[in-house]
Each structure stands twice: as C-alpha cells, then as structure tokens.
C-alpha cells in the first residue's frame, strides 16, 4: 500500500490534532468500524460481495445507510455533540452518495477507519472535503455499558 500524507487527502486535518490508532488493514472499512465490526467490509454493493445488514436496501444512498445503522439501534439526531448516555455515528456523503462513516468516542472525538489504511481519532469535520464530502447524517443510540467502562475500552 502507499503512504500518502493524510493531510494531502484530507486537507482539513492539516494543523489539527489527529491520532493514528491502528496499523493499515484492508480487512474492514469505515462503515464496519463505525458499526463496531473489525472483521468485515461493509458496503451495499449491488453484487452482494460485501457485508450489509439483511433486509436493508443495497443502494448507495444516505437512506440505506440510515436504515443499516437503524438495525443496530441508532436513530437520527440533529447534532454531533457528545451527549451523556449516548453513542453516535456520522455518515459523510458527496453528491448524495455515502463515502464514509465515523463513530463518536466517549471523549467526544471521532474514530474513523480510513478504508484500506489506518484508524484515526479526529475532530469530526476535519475529514470534510473532496474525498468524503461532508456529514449528511448523524445518529445516536443509548450506551449499553456505563460510560466509564466504555471510556476504558476506547483507550485513547
């Protein structure tokens, strides 16, 4: 794989704090990572090569991504700020087509798998740009474990 500086691909990261949290791995992608699955590639490809929740439309639309995360207990919400007792996911889209998903950490920062590359922690909107577009959907669900335990799992 190649080693492009992340800031070249995501100019919003330039001068901002972001932390690389994993080695490169092409076994899972951003959607899987946002969904809590580090072992599969999630995408609604029409050929059915990738994992996608059963019964959800295999369509590259924000609505299909909303429905996929709804299967995991998420409901749409109107902001991406940290809310006690909830965890959040965000879907980026470009020209109406989903390109990326991220999940919020207990710290309020966001975790993203940069697809064939690494996981990073970052401020949500620092990935906005020509690669992933911008945040088009934020969803939340109640945390099922105490926040303190979740924070310990997150590492940071």
């Amino acid at each position, binding site marked *: *794989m*190649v080693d*492009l500086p992340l800031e070249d*691909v*995501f100019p919003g990261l330039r001068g901002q704090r972001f932390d690389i949290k994993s080695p490169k791995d*092409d*076994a*899972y*992608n*951003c*959607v*899987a990572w946002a969904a809590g699955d580090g*072992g*599969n*590639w*999630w*995408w609604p*490809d*029409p*050929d*059915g*090569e*990738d*994992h*996608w929740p059963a019964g959800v439309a295999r369509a*590259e639309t924000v609505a299909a991504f909303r429905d996929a995360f709804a299967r995991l207990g998420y409901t749409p919400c109107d902001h991406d700020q940290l809310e006690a007792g909830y965890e959040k996911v965000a879907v980026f889209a470009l020209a109406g*087509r*989903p*390109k*990326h*998903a991220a999940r919020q950490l207990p710290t309020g920062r966001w975790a993203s798998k*940069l*697809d*064939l*590359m690494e996981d990073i922690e970052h401020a949500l909107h620092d990935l906005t740009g020509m*690669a992933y577009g911008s945040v088009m959907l934020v969803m939340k669900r109640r945390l099922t474990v105490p926040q303190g335990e979740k924070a310990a799992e997150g590492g940071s």
Partner: protein
Amino acid sequence: MSTVPLRQTPEALPPESAAQKFQRLAALWRAETAYVSSTSDLVGHPAFLEIVGMGPAVVPLLLRELQNRTDHWHRALRRITGADPVAPADRGNIDRAAEAWLRWGKEQGYEW
C-alpha cells in the same frame, strides 16, 4: 547558415509483460483508492477495469496476490471468471474470500 538539429527518435520501449502491466496498474489502483470505502468506486476505477480487461491471463497473478493476502483481488477474479466461490455467510470477510478463491484456483488447475 544554421542547421536544424536532428530530432532524436526515442528508442521503442520493450513490450510490457502481463505481469509488469498488472503490477503497474495495481500500484496505480492502490495509490488512488487507499482511502476509498465504496466498493463501486473501487471496482469502477480505470486501473481496476483495465486489470479486469486483461482477462484470464491475469488470473494466476491475482491468485498469487491473494496468496500473499494483499488487496481485494477477489473482486477482479469474480468479474473475470464469472465464478463465485465465496459462501454467502462470508460476504465481506476479505480473508475468507481470499481463501475461497485460492481453493477455487487449485480446483481449476491454476498454478501461481
């Protein structure tokens, strides 16, 4: 009286082997899709399409790449061969997809 310098005719490059062409295209594909999650963007990239267009000649090269567990070459194999050896339960599991294709390759008598 000035003279016009003779134009240097570039020497013809040696023809590119299938393996060289594949590696060139694969490197381009990797470089330009490293941050891509969309499968349709991955398989719609011009370098990927050109690899698929190389046809059966590239199958052993793809199997060799899968043996080394690099990249998502199962996607190209499916498009070139029309075969689909990955079990439905393993859709999205890149390691199991690679294993299924390597089994398929052996069953078909490919050597890589």
